[in-house]
């Protein structure tokens, strides 16, 4: 089980590294979306500081959404996914491996970039740390829930828009507590309760997510 998990991670990372452009596009998208807001609402620093947690988190949600089709689509097109489904390896381990590598490629960089965007919005150092940490533990939840949506819409026409419709409402709790942790720290409160809840979401979704994604894959490739 562990061997399959690690094998899939290594393989997916290798594939992702050979197409660095895809990787960078998501990050550039993240930065652009977050940079649009000051242009829309004006350069008032206090207002921007209050908005920053929400803006960065919404941008992270959209960036995570944008990278979801990559999770299964390429492997579906060339038939690799079907081979994985009928292989002797346990499917949940394979799916969890794909989700993990998706997070390393599309989620982890967001956590590293988020503090930079926070600086643009003039967040204090403490809030920057909380922002980075909340994105760090929040993005795996996005990948886990997103995997279900990506598996359900596999091979459908207009899958890109559809997956947004399915997945974004389910992302709301992550947005609330991710942005809430940063806002709490901005207001001088303890962000720990918010972060604990994010951790709880991570625990629940890492149990439910792969299971539901496996079921969805079996339905989609039936």
């Amino acid at each position, binding site marked *: 089980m562990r061997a399959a998990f690690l094998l899939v991670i290594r393989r997916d990372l290798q594939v992702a590294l050979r197409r660095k452009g895809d990787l960078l596009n998501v990050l550039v998208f993240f930065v652009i979306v977050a940079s649009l807001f000051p242009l829309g609402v004006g350069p008032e620093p206090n207002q921007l500081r209050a908005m920053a947690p929400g803006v960065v988190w919404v941008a992270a949600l959209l960036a995570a959404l944008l990278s979801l089709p990559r999770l299964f689509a390429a492997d579906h097109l060339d038939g690799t996914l079907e081979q994985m489904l009928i292989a002797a390896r346990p499917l949940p381990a394979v799916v969890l491996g794909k989700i993990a590598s998706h997070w390393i490629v599309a989620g982890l960089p967001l956590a590293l970039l988020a503090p930079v965007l926070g600086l643009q919005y003039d967040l204090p150092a403490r809030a920057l740390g909380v922002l980075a940490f909340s994105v760090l533990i929040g993005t795996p939840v996005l990948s886990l829930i997103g995997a279900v949506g990506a598996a359900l819409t596999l091979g459908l026409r207009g899958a890109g828009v559809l997956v947004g*419709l399915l997945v974004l409402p389910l992302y709301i709790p992550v947005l609330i507590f991710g942005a809430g942790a940063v806002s709490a720290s901005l207001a001088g409160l303890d962000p720990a309760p918010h972060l604990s809840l994010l951790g709880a979401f991570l625990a629940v979704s890492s149990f439910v997510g792969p299971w539901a994604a496996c079921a969805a894959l079996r339905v989609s490739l039936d």
Partner: protein
Amino acid sequence: MATVNPKMTHSDEIGGPIWLRYAAPQAFFPLAGRLIPWFAALAALLCIVGLYIAFFVAPTDFQQGESYRVIFIHVPAAWMSMFLYVIMAFWAAAGFVLNTRLSGMMASAIAPTGAMFTFVALWSGALWGKPTWGTWWVWDARLTSELILLFLYLGFIALKGAIPDVRRADRAGAILALVGVVNIPIIYFSVQWWNTLHQGASVSLTRAPAMAKTMLLGMLVMALAAWMYSFAVCFARARSIILERERDAAWVESMKGKA
């Protein structure tokens, strides 16, 4: 394409215990057809009685004046929006586990009605909010979670609509509905907590201490009317879905020209 197993005769398929007998689309189809007029008539009757109580019997609210009467539409719609999601998820799950064809069709039939009630609840809430709160919309916890519920319905309908193969559509919809049901309490409490953190209790839905008996009665009658309406409409929609999906089945073929 779902077709009747050729080895089974008509009577074999619709035999069995009574609670299983109507799980077969060809047995359910005429039953629903017989029940729809009754549910429709009850819905109309209860609606007339409920609206009469709402407009002529129930007293004027001493705080909100006449505008409170929106609740006779609003509250039943909000109740139904939540009930119907759970019922839809129940049928979707039953279809997923037991592989019964009718369950997936019922889930498809319920979704538009649920979405409609969610929309009515939001819309009537806005109409009530304007005179009472002075604004069409506030980011109140209940309003926000109702809005998210509408998104969940629309996602379910969109996913089913996007999948041409009905079997895959039913099973995919079931997974989505189940993930949604697990998420609804999480979303609800998240939104509630978010709301109390971000804005003070400037508005709240808690109204005058005790509700007059006639108000409650009117609301319950309207809720019953909404139930009857849902039965009638969902059965009618299920009948068209059955006809559409089983159009190549022998029993549909044999009905042609009769009706």
